[in-house]
């Protein structure tokens, strides 16, 4: 066994892995934000609230309808995605032509309403949600004990991230979508229903947040403020990655998870500020973000 900066290598590997696990949440959430910003030009501040809403949906499905984790993993994102689409039809669609600020204010207000409602009914301390039986326990990797559930989170998140990137960058549907953001009028001329596509895209972005929410429920307690605690960090991730860049969101999500994990070993007091320090540096050096295209 060797040491790196006075930390035993074993402990360090463990911390790297933990960083990756947290990074998977950042990646999943920032991915949804990047999709919504890239395609709709909306800064979706309600993303954290939608993530929290899905965790609550999973909790309610379990306690009131006896529907377990695996079905909830599908049902909750669909329900919350539909909720997102209703919001898009009712409110957001009127804002695309206006300044970004209007979308930001509207979604921020929505987030406060959703969070306040949840707090009113469920209080702030949170509710317990068990790890599903099939993922109980864990593996001893020699350098650390890896709970099965966390391993599943990493795998699922990588798969979803790759799938989304492939869908948008490599398929015909994705090509339509990108074209529709560039020039909606022209794409319409080809007989494609652009508003519907935009609605579905928003729903998809929200469903990604919802998926992360259900995956987070067994790790963190299901609480009304679980989203607002995360959303600011996730925004920093998106800014560092480059607003709207899908690949950027994924790579920075995982990368910052690791950096944050290492900070927790070397200087734990700074672990919740390190991401913003990096954001400030990136903005100074590359204002469009690491993977952003110049406007």
């Amino acid at each position, binding site marked *: 066994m060797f040491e790196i900066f006075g930390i035993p290598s074993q402990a360090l590997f463990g911390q790297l892995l933990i960083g990756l696990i947290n990074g998977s949440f950042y990646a999943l959430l920032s991915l949804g934000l990047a999709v919504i910003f890239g395609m709709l030009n909306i800064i979706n501040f309600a993303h954290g609230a939608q993530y929290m809403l899905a965790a609550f949906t999973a909790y309610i499905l379990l306690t009131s309808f006896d529907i377990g984790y695996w079905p909830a993993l599908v049902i909750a994102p669909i329900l919350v995605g539909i909720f997102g689409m209703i919001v898009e039809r009712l409110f957001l669609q009127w804002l695309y032509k206006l300044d970004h600020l209007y979308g930001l204010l509207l979604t921020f207000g929505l987030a406060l309403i959703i969070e306040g409602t949840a707090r009113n009914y469920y209080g702030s*301390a949170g509710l*317990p949600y*068990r790890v599903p039986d099939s993922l109980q326990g864990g593996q001893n990797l020699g350098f650390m004990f890896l*709970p099965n559930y966390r391993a599943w989170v990493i795998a699922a998140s990588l798969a979803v991230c790759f799938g989304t990137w492939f869908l948008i960058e490599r398929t015909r549907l994705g090509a339509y979508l990108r074209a529709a953001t560039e020039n909606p009028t022209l794409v319409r001329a080809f007989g494609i229903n652009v508003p519907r596509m935009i609605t579905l895209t928003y729903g998809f972005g929200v469903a990604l947040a919802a998926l992360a929410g259900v995956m987070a429920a067994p790790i963190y*307690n299901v609480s009304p403020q679980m989203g607002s605690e995360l959303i600011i960090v996730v925004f920093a991730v998106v800014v560092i990655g480059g607003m709207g860049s899908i690949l950027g969101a994924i790579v920075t999500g995982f990368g910052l998870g690791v950096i944050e994990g290492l900070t927790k070993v070397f200087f734990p007091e700074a672990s919740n500020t390190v991401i913003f320090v990096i954001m400030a540096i990136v903005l100074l050096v590359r204002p469009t973000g690491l993977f952003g295209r110049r406007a």
Partner: protein
Amino acid sequence: MKKAFVLAAVAAALACGTAQAQQVNVKIGVLTDMSSLYADLAGPGSVAAARMAIADFTKANPNVKVDLVSGDHQNKPDVGTNLANQWIDVEKVDLIIDTPNSGVALAVNEVVRNKNKVFINSGAAASDLTGPKCSPNTVHWTYDTWMLANGTGKAIVKNGGDSWFFLTADYAFGHALERDTTAVVEKNGGKVLGKVRHPVNTNDFSSFLLQAQASKAKIIGLANAGGDTINSIKQAAEFGIVKGGQSLAGLLVFASDVNSLGLATAQGLIFTETWYWDQNDNNRAWTKRWQAERNASGKVPTMVQAGVYAGLTHYLKAVAALGSAADGKAVVAKMKEIPTDDPLFGKGTIRADGRKIHDAYLYEVKKPAESKHAGDYYKVLATIPAAEAFRPLNEGGCSLVKG
């Protein structure tokens, strides 16, 4: 003889008359965390407790008129300070009560001292409030870090848990709790192998828990509170820390946390509190009323909320006895002079340094199978008598203590 009797009767009638005629107006501000990690252990539940105390007191003393305001300090000392200033200067508030979060509490402590009003703290833990930062305007009611450390730390070291690693919330409260517990552990022959200080409101503790695991300490002391404690305990279970032979010591655990964790995860946890809703008939009856007032039958009140009720009741007694709430120092002096007596904490006293003295209890969380009804969470392991539960008067470094 007859003359003396008549005189006495007249005097008594006059005394009654003046007492009746003298209307006392009091305004109370519940300064608390309404929306974040401490909102369930204090927050709206503390406001409900304050309303109950006011209703009970004014029913028996119709000449006292009490107004109530409440506000959210958002766990930010600057927000808390501003609100306290505004309440006292503009809205003429006489008493600020509750105030979880030691950072905010220490800031408000200074505001209230400078403006000569009264501060009854139930929600914050820092023992500095009755130590170096003690004030003639402050009463610290429910619990403090010294009492938690002493109760839980001593019991665990005596049972063989002699090596410790701390997960500490990185602010005044966490530091105080870590310091006080370290002192108790070392005094009883244990040692502290390491610590990690995490930011408040951390979501993921796995990184810190791995460090704790690597330290090989027998006991992992959680010097944090609210949502941070909940997540630490939950994730410690996930990473197999308890199964691996290490134990968790919750240094500050509230009934609302246990409610939130569920007994399956929280069982076996040992900690110290000063009040538990299911301990006796008085507490149960009060809890029923509180649930109705709070409109939440599934919630159970915490010791902080009980402390708000008891503290406010005692304050109102002192104000009624003085006939005025204007001079904060005088009210607190009166509060220290008359013995405390309320249905929740029983008989007790307030010391010169502002520390309220009552029994504390060492509890263990029941196994799910042992729990008979909703909210049946704790069994009592030991009662720590009032005289031993809190820091000895002369050890706090409070300037109000002579000699």
